[in-house]
């Protein structure tokens, strides 16, 4: 069973509203710590953001209340979020190795990993080989577009 019930009384609408309220509180605290809203009769750099933050509280609380009226519980269909999650992790790794390995090598690895993830047919040796070829072509085409056609400097790694 890949459908796991994490909470029964909570639902996605309310959960996101709570996350927004928590994030907003962090923002507000940072604002209050940075500078006073008004100093020597003049409004400071945090005056406007703090007003905006208060407005966010109002909207998020409204969403939380309307979300609480919904009957569905909080379901996480793991099979549904596994691919987006994997893409986020792969992309994060790509960002971390981008400068170290250089554009060409890191991008080939990135594109190949994504292709592997998006593979529609059963993964075979042939399809893997084809994915490697596609990865090379895509990375090379985008390299030519940025570096050669538009003169954008892309990082060069130690290997190539």
């Amino acid at each position: 069973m890949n459908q796991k019930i994490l909470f029964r009384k909570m639902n996605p609408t309310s959960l996101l509203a709570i996350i927004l309220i928590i994030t907003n509180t962090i923002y507000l605290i940072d604002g209050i710590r940075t500078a006073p809203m008004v100093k020597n009769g003049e409004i400071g750099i945090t005056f406007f953001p703090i007003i905006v933050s208060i407005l966010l509280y109002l909207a998020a609380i409204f969403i939380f209340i309307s979300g609480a009226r919904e009957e569905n519980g909080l379901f996480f269909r793991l099979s549904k979020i596994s691919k987006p999650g994997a893409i986020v992790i792969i992309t994060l790794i790509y960002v971390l190795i981008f400068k170290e390995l250089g554009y060409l090598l890191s991008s080939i690895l990135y594109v190949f990993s994504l292709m592997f993830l998006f593979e529609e047919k059963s993964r075979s040796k042939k399809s893997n080989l084809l994915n490697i070829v596609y990865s090379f072509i895509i990375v090379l085409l985008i390299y030519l577009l940025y570096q050669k056609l538009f003169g954008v400097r892309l990082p060069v790694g130690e290997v190539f």
Partner: protein
Amino acid sequence: MENLTGIIQGFQTFFIPGIMIYAFLGFFVGTFFGAVPGLTATLAIALLLPVTYSMDIVKALVMCMGIYMAGMYAGSITATTINIPGAPSAMMTAIEGHKMMQKGQGAKALGQAAFASMIGGTIGSVLLMIIAPFAVKLALLIKTPGKFSLIFFAFVVVILAQRKSIAKGAVATILGIMTATVGIDIMQPAARFTFGIDPLVQGIDMMPLIIGTFAISELLIQSEKSSDEYKLINKEMINQKIKRKDFLPSLKDIKEIGVFTYIKGALIGFFIGVLPGAGGSMASFLSYAEAMRSSKDPDKYGTGTLEGIAAAESANNAVCGGALVPMLTFSIPGDAVAAVVLGVLIINGLQPGPRLMTTQFHLIAPMFAALFFSALVILPLTLYLLGPYFIKIVSINRKILYTSIALVAMVGGYVSTYSVFQMLMTLVMGVIAYILRKQNYPTVSLLLGFILGPMIEKYFRRALYISEGNPLIFFTEWDSIIFLILTVIFYYFLAIRKPIYITKVLEKNQPK
């Protein structure tokens, strides 16, 4: 007279082959992105954003106009043939067009959608050329408190335009404003909202925000869909046999619909386009609802009527011209595409506003010409020559498509500042936008909040500085009062007193 000369010179610049080719190129790109469900013209321009750094700004803007016009139209191809709108603005076309397709009249529907788009797009771009210079004169009259109230009015309309949930529209807009506050303050050399993370002092660049919001979030959403869904779409598309002549409407149909329907649709589209955050889908919806209200036979709506297609398509293409008016004169984009085009201008060091329209009009005028030419010539010409092949592009291998989009997006995030941190921000903004979209928060509002946030704060603080902290300045200056009254009027009509016939259309048609 001066403006007319400027526009004529703009056309002369546009007709230089080396520049005009970019309108064609943009049109093909826009058609591709508009026709493939999930991809939009906004995404196309967002992906193009990094390369505009190295491009001539005139060429970049000309290309954007081609994408814009094509993106608005192309959604109607899949909307009619397989009942899946390629773009949100083609939703109403799907209702009537696909019914006609089922009756064996798909060719008529496609022809009418193309013709109405051409008329709407052309009228919209002509109105843009006429109204923009007057809007510039108006913009010059507005002082600091008035500028604050104008942006406040824009925010209220952006939020109210979210018919499904105003609170979610408000949250998305506020999140955009808050994101823009990260980094160095707009008026003083002091850092704020860095949360102890040093790289955040440089703030979050516009490029990662646009690319993350529109490209990365789309990639994550598309990854959830099973390949079976695509196989079904591809199978249906391959079975569609569309000929070149299908894109030509018959004179009899045009007479039956009536010229007034096209003009009315175009006018509705143009003025909806002027409103911030409304965009093509709202324009086509309202134009369709108005056509249904004024029709001699409203019962035929929803069963496959050319009148509905003409109203919806002429409106959504006229939006292109309308949305550019506030963007160019007040820096307030009318829709998501105009917001990204605003990004193109800002990234290239141009700040839209009265000064740009007066001192650097030679850079903007070819863009007007490109919009006009795309609607009147490129749209019918390319549809006639390549229309049948556009159907095939939907069946492109999505593995190659989305990995290419991912790579262009991430590298695009890097090249904006040659910073890996901004690349990381592209991913972060993509994940945030993905979560928001999953919960039906409008990401366009997020972008508009990010763009307009620093402006409203700047005018708010300046106005209070002028009045020595007295907030009554917003209620005593005439320009500010006008926009505040407008805000109340729009709030009344959009949130309190919704026209009954719109509710009726919503009840009658539940598009797939």
